[in-house]
């Protein structure tokens, strides 16, 4: 199986917004822009607002009470953090479904926008008077520069997404049987996969197909020639477990980020550095905010999930 094909496949399928809520949000943004003829600055704001509003309503129903604002900027930073954590974590981390959907949506919109700008549709009707003509000329020069930057930026985002997905795929390959056990144990159908949130739908499909091929291959080449008792692939009767599992007590570098800005503002004790207690064997260790540690992954796992620490 060629990995490029898989990746291409994955890209294709993930590009299509699958959930209905997402579709509606895309739609309403477009509608909004049609109806409104407003100044540039304002319309930027409204565009952002509708984005925020709809993400709030549709994809984050749990946070109805608090108004959380979503910006591409923040999402990108979150993507970077998620990517870095994934790269350094010994196990596969939860798949941020909504985040990836939003990012892919931004990318899609940006590709359209770049195409539109590079085709020069925006210059058509201003060339009536001299002043405008001059404007168009300078605009055209500037546009090349801005296009350069926008394309560079797009490539950067694509790189992160690609690297992130490839990293996850390699983990799925490595822990295929382990993940199979894990997901089968939860006994979930395809529809409820997002509930467990460990792997995305497409990743799950990949996992199933890949492990099927692998097991078939192992069976046909080696196992079928052996005694029936020795054919199991997940035998752990002996001293050694056959299934490759993530080494959760491996050491990782962490940075203690602490609570994020929003909650920090509410806290009056800003000066006092927060500490987080972890237990290693029998001893207690305080992790100070802003500190860098080498520490076992499993003791900081819960803080990682809360976002209080990040992997370096």
């Amino acid at each position: 199986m060629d990995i490029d094909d898989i990746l291409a496949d994955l890209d294709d399928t993930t590009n299509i917004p699958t959930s209905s809520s997402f579709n509606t949000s895309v739609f309403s943004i477009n509608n909004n822009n049609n109806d409104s003829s407003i100044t540039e600055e304002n319309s930027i704001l409204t565009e952002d607002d509708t984005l925020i509003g709809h993400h709030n309503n549709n994809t984050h129903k749990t946070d109805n009470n608090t108004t959380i604002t979503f910006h591409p900027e923040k999402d990108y930073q979150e993507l970077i953090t998620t990517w870095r954590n994934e790269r350094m974590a010994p196990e596969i981390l939860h798949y941020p479904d909504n985040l990836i959907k939003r990012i892919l949506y931004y990318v899609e919109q940006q590709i359209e926008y770049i195409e539109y700008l590079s085709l020069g549709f925006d210059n058509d009707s201003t060339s009536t008077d001299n002043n405008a003509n001059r404007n168009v000329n300078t605009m055209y020069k500037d546009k090349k520069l801005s296009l350069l930057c926008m394309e560079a930026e797009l490539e950067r985002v694509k790189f992160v997404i690609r690297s992130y997905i490839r990293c996850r795929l390699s983990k799925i390959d490595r822990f295929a049987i382990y993940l199979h056990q894990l997901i089968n144990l939860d006994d979930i159908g395809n529809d409820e996969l997002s509930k467990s949130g460990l792997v995305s739908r497409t990743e799950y499909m990949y996992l199933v197909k890949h492990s099927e091929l692998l097991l078939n291959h192992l069976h046909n080449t080696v196992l079928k020639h052996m005694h029936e008792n020795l054919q199991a692939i997940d035998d752990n009767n002996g001293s050694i477990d056959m299934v490759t599992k993530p080494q959760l007590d491996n050491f990782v570098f962490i940075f203690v980020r602490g609570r994020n800005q929003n909650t920090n503002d509410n806290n009056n004790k800003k000066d006092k550095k927060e500490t987080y207690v972890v237990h290693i064997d029998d001893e207690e260790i305080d992790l100070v905010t802003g500190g860098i540690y080498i520490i076992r992954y499993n003791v900081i796992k819960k803080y990682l999930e809360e976002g209080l620490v990040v992997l370096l």
Partner: protein
Amino acid sequence: MSFPESLQNTFLPQEIQFIVENEPIKILPRITTRQRKQYRQGSNYDPDSKNSHPIKPWRLITTNDYNVNNMIAMKSTELPLWMAVLLKEQKKCNIIAPNWITVSNLDKYIDFELKNPMKFSSLPWNWLVIACILFTKAPDDLTDPIHLLKSRCQDLREIRLAKVQNGLAILNESHLQLDNLSLMEINEIRPYATKISDMFKNLHKNTAAGLGEDYDMHMDTSEPGASFNMTQNP
């Protein structure tokens, strides 16, 4: 298969640079992008006006694009480093070097490093990459002669590297604190540090299970009172 061995459990230096390049830096633009008039009102680019957008010459999805749409020549603003470098290559801006890249400030850091053999000075977490980028891409924007700065940075790097290597001696099976170590430096020692710690941990497990106290005693005496700003567990 999907991810080469060299990329697993570590970052490439280029990837570290990539991460650092997302950080903002101050620049002096040589171009003006702020529109004097509002550029257009409710313009559509799609005849079906299905996907109409307000025209905005710069629209970015990774950072706030307010700054880049409101650049005024010779008025300082802040952009992500990668864009600053890109504009610099097009000769459209000057990068304002962060104030720690001066001979006098770097000398202070070197002093600190020399006086505190068990601590790292509080250089920014991305100092190595920033310095490297500025030296190669924007040598004319630095305030001090570049060869002096380069030699200071080289000194700093070597002092810190030596400290890190000494620090490997007090790696243990529990944890280690390494404040102020920059991302690039962490990435450099990552393969050793994590592997050695893992080995210690396994040894510790085995000795705790069977062989008794020999190993622990050896650990305690090996580095008397080492603190290294890396608080060793007692």
